[in-house]
């Protein structure tokens, strides 16, 4: 039986935008791009967690751009960790605190431990450590993956989380091959949920729906045990669009059905927001073309590419056991 022998934080959900505290724990001093949604994720995540929090940041944009020596943007304690180490950093920090509190070497109190990683650090290099950490029910921690769908810090190279066909510096369209990247994006949250039955909380978020995202963070930190949140973050530099439409793209990712929003809490799957409306037939998915056309990384797409992308999204909504989560169906469920 798992034991968490130290107090958990009490973090009730914020009941509306106006109830969100003004105090910031991720503040000025960073030099992220204009319109950077991942910086917003950091800000909201820190605000949702509050002052008694330790943040571990694996290598990536949110390390390099946020913590120039002498001008850190973190008000709460923050430490760098290696690219593939978000899982281990959270686990080690939580284990250290737990041991010291149990042995009377440190005051017993709830201290939130959050490790963040980008899609490269999380879905690629750090997958093994994140997976291992989610099997440790004894430690209270959150791993948050901010997914801007490329190695955006190092010049926009494709990751296992880059969408099909996107133009990155490692997958440019060329004279002979229009599409160099034809892998489908990893289903990170669904994979982790299916593979870690003891994990009490896994969610997808989108900062265009900030209040819900913050409340997901609060739930993840207070439920007890290791938890995971996957955030989809439009990235003006990597996706090649005008910074002023970041928020719109975040919404379009959901309304086109490309990015389903859901929580899996204590074994119960709950779709939320527009995703829920789509699933219940109350909202008609917009064509993915509306989302893709606004991003320069898909400027080389021809009709057949848009059609292929649309067919994959349709397949997800119509053929998957659970849209966005379980990419197969059982023989028993034949239509």
């Amino acid at each position: 039986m798992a034991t968490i022998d130290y107090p958990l934080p009490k973090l009730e959900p914020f009941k509306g935008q106006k109830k969100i505290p003004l105090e910031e724990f991720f503040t000025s001093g960073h030099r992220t791009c204009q319109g950077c949604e991942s910086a917003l994720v950091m800000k909201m995540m820190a605000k949702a967690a509050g002052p008694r929090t330790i943040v571990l940041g694996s290598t990536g944009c949110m390390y390099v751009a946020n913590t120039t020596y002498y001008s850190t943007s973190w008000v709460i304690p923050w430490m760098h960790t290696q690219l593939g180490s978000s899982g281990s950093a959270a686990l080690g920090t939580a284990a250290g605190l737990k041991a010291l509190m149990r042995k009377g070497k440190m005051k017993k109190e709830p201290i939130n431990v959050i490790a963040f990683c980008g899609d490269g650090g999380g879905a690629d290099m750090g997958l093994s450590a994140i997976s291992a950490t989610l099997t440790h029910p004894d430690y209270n921690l959150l791993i948050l993956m901010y997914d801007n769908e490329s190695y955006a810090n190092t010049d926009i190279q494709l990751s296992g989380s880059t969408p099909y066909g996107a133009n990155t510096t490692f997958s440019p369209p060329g004279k002979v091959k229009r599409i160099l990247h034809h892998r489908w994006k990893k289903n990170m949250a669904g994979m982790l949920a299916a593979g870690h039955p003891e994990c009490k909380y896994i969610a997808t978020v989108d900062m265009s729906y900030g209040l819900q995202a913050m409340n997901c963070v609060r739930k993840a930190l207070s439920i007890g045990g290791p938890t995971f949140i996957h955030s989809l973050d439009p990235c003006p530099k990597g996706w090649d669009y005008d910074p002023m439409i970041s928020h719109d793209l975040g919404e379009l990712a959901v309304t086109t059905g490309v990015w389903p929003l859901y929580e899996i809490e204590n074994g119960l799957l709950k779709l939320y927001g527009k995703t829920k409306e789509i699933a219940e037939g109350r909202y008609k998915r917009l064509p993915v073309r509306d989302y893709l056309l606004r991003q320069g990384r898909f400027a080389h797409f021809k009709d057949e590419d848009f059609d292929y992308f649309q067919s994959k999204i349709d397949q997800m909504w119509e053929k998957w056991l659970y849209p966005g989560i379980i990419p197969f169906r059982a023989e028993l469920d034949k239509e």
Partner: protein
Amino acid sequence: MTPTAVAESTKGTEQTALITGSEAIAVACKLADVDVITGYPIRPYDTVIQYIAQLIADGEMDCEYIVAEGEHSQFEIVKHASTVGARVFCGSSGVGWMYAFECLTVTPALRVPMVVMVGNRALDDPGAFGVEHNDALAVRDLGWQLVWVDSAQEALDTALIAYRVAEDRRIFLPCAISCDGAFLTHSQAHVKIPPQDQVNQFLPRYDRGDLLLHPDNPISVAPQANEDWLMEIRRQTAAAMDRSMGVIREAYKDYEKIIGRSYGNPFFEEYMTDDADIVLVGMGTLSTPVKVAIRKMRQEGKKVGLVRVRWFRPFAAEELAKSLSRFKGIGVIDRDFSLGSPYASGVLTTEVRTALYPAAKHPPIIGFICGLGGREVTVPDVEKMSDITFAAAAGKAQPATQWIGVRE
């Protein structure tokens, strides 16, 4: 003895137990009240974790014990635990150590104290479980304090000393204790186990001070410094390593005072060197066949001594040069290789040569590469190396580096 029986013996006065080198380090972890321990299986170091696991299962040790999913995580987990003030332990061998290499580079740079055991093992390929020192030596430039021990007793004592040195605020650098695979990790010997109260007196609590990562001390650790500040930060790490020698000396002195066991010069052991014409220099358990061979050769009138290097980092260059320059010839036995290095020598030979360069007197130095992959260093091997060194001392030209005990 079972782990529990050994653990119980720490409660009263000094006791003796028949344990291996790995087990001796596990007992030191118990005595040091380590807070977080991570394991991942690879032979031969894994025996230390097996012993610790039993101590935990039997309720003899209270720590967070995490079996990681690879050495990279194993070392990252304890690194982060140390930043919040936890005393930590882990270890590895051979390619496992190399799998953690990224973590091994950042740990000293972050000024994170950590004590680890390296059960020295040949690097793949080809596969071999036996000892070779290339694994631990790979980190020699990075700020790790590296020490080689040659007995289970020395392993236990050195582990306690290592915690004291690594966690000293003047140092805050990790320390790896190298134990030769099989010859030490799996060989039992009688070990005197100091009582807990003496250990408590010797080893203060780890206090991370103003570097503690905690909401009460909201610091940002390891930001992007780039060319603006990186060099100053490196210089500080170098200064810590510069101070290490003095702190090691203090720790050995206090260990003798409180626990009552002395190792003489902490940095290297001299055996039958007072009247020696030539000496052999080496690290780890090859001291056993070398000492046996020396006693045999002395009966034949050959005055050979041994200088066994304990601390490789920091390297006691001046002291070693002073000691070694008094002999007529020096044969350095490397249980490692450094391909393409100056004179194609092993790592230790190159270091000894460098250390001796400023000395007024330069005896000839012959490098020997011997006992790789766990191959036994035999008494005839040692005699052969001594004869070559005698010949060099007599002015007969010798190849600078020679492989001994190898099929040609």
